[in-house]
């Protein structure tokens, strides 16, 4: 559970996220970007959206994982330095939502990541799309898990 070391505290105060949309419909992606903007301003919590998975602590995943996205997603996960965790934003990322019957979808993101890293940790934020407030709440819950 939540570490009380200096590093643990720093991690909770400075979670950098890398946003990875895996063939979703864009709506969750927009709500994620919305979290950065003046009304929600996640920088208050030290959250930064970074441009490379190498810099990230948290992977935000939105959308179901298409067959073509599967390998890149696994690669991005492995590129992240430990400790790392993922936040599933929206029903599609959590459980594939309405796409579960689609032929070109490889599976929900947690299953795809667990194929390469069985110990990966996730927090799920359902909704279509979840509101920015919900995403922030989910992120905070995730930080408690780190």
């Amino acid at each position, binding site marked *: 559970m939540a570490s009380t070391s200096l590093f643990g505290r720093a991690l909770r105060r400075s979670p950098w996220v890398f946003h990875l949309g895996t063939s979703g419909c*864009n*709506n969750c992606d927009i709500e994620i970007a919305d979290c950065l903007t003046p009304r929600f301003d996640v920088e208050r*919590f030290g959250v930064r959206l970074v441009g490379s998975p190498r810099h990230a602590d948290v992977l935000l995943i939105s959308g*179901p994982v298409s067959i*073509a996205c599967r390998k890149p997603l696994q690669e991005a996960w492995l590129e992240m330095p430990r400790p790392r965790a993922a936040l599933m934003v929206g029903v599609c990322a959590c459980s594939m939502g309405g796409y579960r019957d689609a032929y070109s979808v490889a599976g929900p993101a947690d299953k795809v990541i667990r194929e390469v890293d069985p110990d990966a940790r996730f927090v799920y934020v359902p909704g279509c799309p979840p509101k920015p407030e919900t995403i922030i709440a989910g992120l*905070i819950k995730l930080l408690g898990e780190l």
Partner: protein
Amino acid sequence: MSDPSSRHVVQIGPFHPLLEEPVGFSLTVEGERVVAIDARMDYIHKGLERLAQERTYDMVPILLERICGICSVTHSVCFCNAVEDLLGVEIPPRAAYIRTIIGELERLHSHLLWVGLAGHFIGYNTVFMWAWKYREPVCDAFEMLTGHRQNSALPLVGGVRRDLPVEYFPVVRKTLDELEGQTERLTAAVLDDPVLAARLKGVGVLSAEAALDYGVVGPTARASGLATDVRRDEPYAAYAELDWKVVTQDGGDVFSKAVVRLLEILESIRILRQCLDRLPAGAINLGTLHVPRGEGIGRYEAPRGEDIHYVRSNGTNMPERLKVRAPSYVNIPSFRSSCLGAPMADVMITLAACDPCYSCTERSLVLRDAAGARLLATPGLIEASRQKTFELARALGHAPDLELDPA
């Protein structure tokens, strides 16, 4: 110096900060100059037009909202237009106005979103923040009127599902008034900024001929001087009765595209005001309809341009075939004309300038959606949801210390 051995390929995507969605662009560059460009679209292909055959005409509009996060009204209304074309019916006037209102609100937030993202792509984060700050009240207005920030679940073949809560109209009007001033200031700032002009003018020019050849639509075409707008060409909903004009620019460059969108925001505000004032009384849909054998084509002016759906019915309660052509599908390939020879830094903003929506491009016909049921909530539930939202926001705003875990 065009020695082929010195070329190399820069891969943009599938995951790239420029792109909210996974899509692969391969730029072949010499130094920083792009000499060839190719796109790979399979990352986001989850679509099964095939599965449209298994959903009823009532379900399809809700599902089409999930083709794209921004154009949710677009695809559902466009589908309704197509089926109504097949049926040959006219929808009630109140329904037409309601469709216009939600459509224009969507255009507002979509254009503001683009302005912000375009700023972000060229490193102008202040514009990003400001535009998205202006966008929030529009999303609020959408939520007040429909119960959801983007996915309204209102359109229905033959009209709309629910009526709009007129008691919120004064709030929406106030939002529009504020937005008008803000947009005018933003437009003035963009038009006057010399650095922006240096960065955007003459960049990614798409000539009128190329625009027609690629069949581009919407602001992308209007910035190249093609006065095409489905709202005027084939007036659906209430557009024939409203006073507004088509915005065009001649430059064809990124700057013109930005100007077109900014001016369209002002036009949309005008349209919305008229709709709010004139909303007629009466029925909001035609009730239960049987869809016979036949085919129909619907068009709709999405924020990004003309959306076109083709529906073929075999007489059952589910479409036999639904073909969706989102505007980005024709806008994106035009990069071949506008990007070649440009420096890499310009390619990014040029790609972004047609406001690409890759999930639309890769439209997927979505089916049952677990969250769909939520959209049918009663106004009371909506209010409760909003209440909770505000509480959460307040709690978070006053407790920046993350160790206070709300769970």
